[in-house]
């Protein structure tokens, strides 16, 4: 049974019960009061009549016989004023109290008549008699019937009103619950952005606000899960693509070499392709292994000198820089920093290598290391081709390459920045890019300084 139906039923039951009990109680108490009044009046009247009858019988006796007898009383009764009353002498089988009453129902043909019968004991000449008087109280019963009729009408109206009230009340009370349940259903159906719109301040309102909080958490979790799944999928797809491309060349050229008689020139070319594509696979597997190992391992954090790090990276970059006729400028403040130096070397090497690839021969690349209020900031600045705005948000995705053919020519696998990003993350830093196409790029990140 629905909650609203339950509430309605409860309201109707309570109203019906209350109205019927109270109504019946009022009607019957009024009735009984009136009846009692009638009985008292009748009893008093009968007592009065008894004494009058006694006196009059004694008076009549003195003129006729010596003792008052039942006959005398009967005679007396037949004269005025007693004729106006319905009186008779009775002889009960058992002795009775002074005044007793009884209500009898007389079926007088078609009509039913209620009468109060008063039996009153009195004594004349040391002899006891009983006088019975009757009084019609049918009016009272009829009145009670009328009252009950009216009451029934009132009762029906009350039930109808309570039904309507209960219905409205339950609708109002259960509206937030229904709204909540609708939201639950929608969320269960996969629409996680739905919230319960319940503004009441009662328990249901509290429940709704807690429910909304839960839904919010759920939505966030689902979103992050979906993002992770999507990233995983993207990664797998890119990985498959990046793996299959060099494999296609290696397998294809090897197959061609073994099946066809090629001119020497083409043989050499095919072998070169196999070599370079094999190298590409090697680079990729190397970077991937490093990326995977970083996913699972905690860095070995130590104190190290910022200048020593910069010098070490400068040394390993010297040859590739010279090849491109580039100048590497070092402007690094020496401080003691906290982190894993070997990882940060890879990070800086990758950033410098990207800068190198983006720069025209003869231009300058700057490695900056400065203290800032937020921490120690490393920045790599080039004056190269820059990164297009729409590519900036994607450059740290694994296998993403802004210019695929150029990157290929340089032997890149599109993993350098994904790796760098991961290393920065392990040091609690994020890579920050500022780039203008044709003007150059600045990549920076913050490290913790060891305070002496």
């Amino acid at each position, binding site marked *: 049974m629905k909650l609203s139906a339950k509430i309605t039923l409860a309201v109707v039951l309570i109203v019906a019960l209350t109205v019927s009990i109270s109504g019946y109680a009022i009607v019957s108490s009024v009735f009984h009061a009136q009846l009692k009044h009638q009985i008292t009046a009748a009893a008093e009247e009968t007592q009065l009549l008894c004494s009058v009858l006694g006196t009059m019988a004694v008076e009549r006796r003195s003129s006729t016989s010596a003792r008052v007898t039942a006959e005398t009383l009967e005679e007396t009764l037949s004269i005025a004023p007693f004729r106006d009353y319905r009186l008779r002498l009775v002889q009960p089988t058992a002795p009775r109290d002074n005044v007793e009453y009884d209500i009898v129902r007389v079926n007088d043909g078609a009509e039913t008549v209620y009468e109060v019968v008063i039996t009153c004991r009195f004594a004349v000449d040391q002899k006891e008699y009983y006088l019975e008087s009757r009084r019609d109280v049918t009016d009272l019963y009829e009145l009670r019937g009328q009252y009950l009729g009216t009451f029934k009408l009132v009762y029906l109206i009350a039930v109808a009103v309570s039904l309507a009230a209960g219905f409205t009340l339950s609708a109002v009370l259960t509206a937030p619950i229904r709204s909540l349940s609708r939201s639950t259903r929608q969320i269960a159906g996969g629409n996680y952005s739905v919230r319960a719109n319940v503004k009441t301040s009662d328990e249901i309102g509290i429940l709704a606000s807690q429910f909304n909080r839960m839904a919010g958490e759920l939505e966030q979790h689902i979103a992050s899960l979906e993002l992770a799944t999507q990233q995983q999928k993207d990664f797998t797809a890119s990985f498959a693509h990046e793996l299959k491309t060099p494999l296609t060349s*290696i397998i*294809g050229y090897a197959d061609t070499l073994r099946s066809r008689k090629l001119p020497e020139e083409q043989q050499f070319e095919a072998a070169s392709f196999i070599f370079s594509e094999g190298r590409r696979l090697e680079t990729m597997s190397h970077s991937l292994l490093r990326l995977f190992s970083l996913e699972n391992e905690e860095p070995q954090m130590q104190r190290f000198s910022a200048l020593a790090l910069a010098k070490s990276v400068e040394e390993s970059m010297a040859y590739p820089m010279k090849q491109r006729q580039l100048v590497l400028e070092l402007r690094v403040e020496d401080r003691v920093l906290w982190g894993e130096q070997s990882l940060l070397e890879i990070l800086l090497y990758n950033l410098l290598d990207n800068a190198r690839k983006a720069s025209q021969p003869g231009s300058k690349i700057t490695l900056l290391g400065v203290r800032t209020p937020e921490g120690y900031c490393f920045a790599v600045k080039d004056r190269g081709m820059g990164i297009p705005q729409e590519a900036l948000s994607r450059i740290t995705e694994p296998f993403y390459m802004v210019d695929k053919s150029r990157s290929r020519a340089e032997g890149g696998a599109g993993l350098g920045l994904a790796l760098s990003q991961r290393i920065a993350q392990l040091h609690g830093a994020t890579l920050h890019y500022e780039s203008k196409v044709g003007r150059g790029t600045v990549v920076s990140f913050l490290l913790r300084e060891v305070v002496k």
Partner: protein
Amino acid sequence: MTKILIVEDEKPIANLIDWNLSASGYSCTRAYDGNTAADLIAEHNYDLVLLDIMLPGINGYELLGQIKPTGTPVIFITAKGSVQDRVQGLRAGADDYLVKPFEIVELIARVESVLRRAGKASTVYTLGDVTVDTESMQVTKAGVPVTLTRKEFDLLVLFLQNQNVALFRETIYERVWESDYMGDTRTVDLHVQRLRKKLDWQRRLCAIHKVGYRLEGDG
């Protein structure tokens, strides 16, 4: 001469396809990105387009939409090899689907079959006095019909498609018997010997020591 456009952004792969198709007697043009390909398609008529899906500029699906109205058959070449990807590619209107990495024999077989289906390749091979009609599956030597079993016929067509190419036993087995090679060399050897005898090709079908066989073409 049958003209084939190769749209592939990976230069080594484009080069590889070009070499092998050229060696099989096709005239090839390469395009390394979608825009170049679109221009070439608009300006020239090709008999077949080999199309990579992930391309810089206009992608493969968009190009397919441009090629389809011209009636030129298209073979997708892609690293995406899932059933879903294949279905999507074929639904988009590609005539066939070649998944990287592929073997040269497979590339040539698919190119031939798509061209033949499109009515752009001859269904008849002629080598010396041997004529093979792939449609009616009739083989004649000096005008006299030669009776071949189904496998012998398939083997013959494979050799004709790959003239002057060393076919490895496992490749032959996988192409003709269409199942994985389990090291059973006798089946291939037996069929090759019967083919030699029936066509009197003892010289043309030469064995390559420990490897397989090669059909010497006229060229």
